[in-house]
């Protein structure tokens, strides 16, 4: 069962703020990114999955208080400021939650073979022989 389905637009807005390169992903690229994350989440307890969804919902709605708009309606600069505030929050729970979310976004983006190739990551079991 999909964890991200209920919060997909907000999740994608967050992921594209954490990894700006993700804005250029097409539909298949996003599908692949989310598949990687869903696979990682499937092994985690349901409680953690629920907490993640709650956090994403909170990130979507919290900016209403400061900017009068939801996260998905903000420009990229404001989105980055919202996430930076979470990262530096005095509340451990928020810092912890955002750290996990950020890790997932980075993993989902960079674990795709296309992203690995684009940054020149060419680890290969055959080692030097494959790179010659």
């Amino acid at each position: 069962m999909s964890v991200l389905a209920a919060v997909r637009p907000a999740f994608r807005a967050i992921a594209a703020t954490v990894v700006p390169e993700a804005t250029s992903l097409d539909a298949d690229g996003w599908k692949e990114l989310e598949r990687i994350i869903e696979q990682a989440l499937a092994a985690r307890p349901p409680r953690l999955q629920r907490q993640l969804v709650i956090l994403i919902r909170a990130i979507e709605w919290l900016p209403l208080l400061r900017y009068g708009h939801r996260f998905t309606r903000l420009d990229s600069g404001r989105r980055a400021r919202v996430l930076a505030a979470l990262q530096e929050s005095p509340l451990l729970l928020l810092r912890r939650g955002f750290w996990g979310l950020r890790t997932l976004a980075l993993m989902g983006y960079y674990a795709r073979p296309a992203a690995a190739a684009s940054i020149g990551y060419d680890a290969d079991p055959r080692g030097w022989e494959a790179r010659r």
Partner: protein
Amino acid sequence: MTALPERAYDVAIVGSGAGGGTVAQALAPLVRDGRRVVVFEQGPRFDDDEFTGCELEMASALYADGGGFLTAQGTMTLAFAHAYGGSTLVYTGTSLTAPERVIRHWGVPGLDHADLLRRSQRYLAENNVHLLPPEEINDNNRLFVEGGARAGYRVEQFPVNVKGCRGSSLCNLGCPNQAKQGTNRVQLPEAERAAGEVLSLPIYPELAPTQLDQVVDAIRGFYR
């Protein structure tokens, strides 16, 4: 779930990594003298061809919580392996002997740096710890050395415990070429060989969490 068979041991070692694996080998002579020694390892034992080098596959297979094990306070994550060989399976192979100032700072009664150095020689030899020859230093590290030297730093190589390294750059995902000489390749097989054909030094693979709890309770009882 089937109940674990009840067995009695003289020594129970928890974990099969750098600590547990080394102790298992060191205690192997006791097995020849009729003592029963067991190593408990939570993770599975992988065959050589199961180290594929694929990031997602190997991270979830080798690491606790896929490498994102969160500490109880939730303030940091730890990446450690649970498999036959423990974290010696996934570290980069860097093999250092603790410097004198560290041992002095620890202040452990009876732990003398000179003695530690002497004992370490055995493991450095067994695990083929050495400095890589210049032709095996990759571009990243070569640039780092050059940059460090130009900035006025003294840059040194870390000795590593590899044999037949092919430069896969996949050390952290379990060497796909079996080059890294962790306890899974050196100390544990040696310990098992010493036990002869009798499984008096078994390695239990793939314990289920509930079975692990049973084992932990039994071990606590053992040490009480």
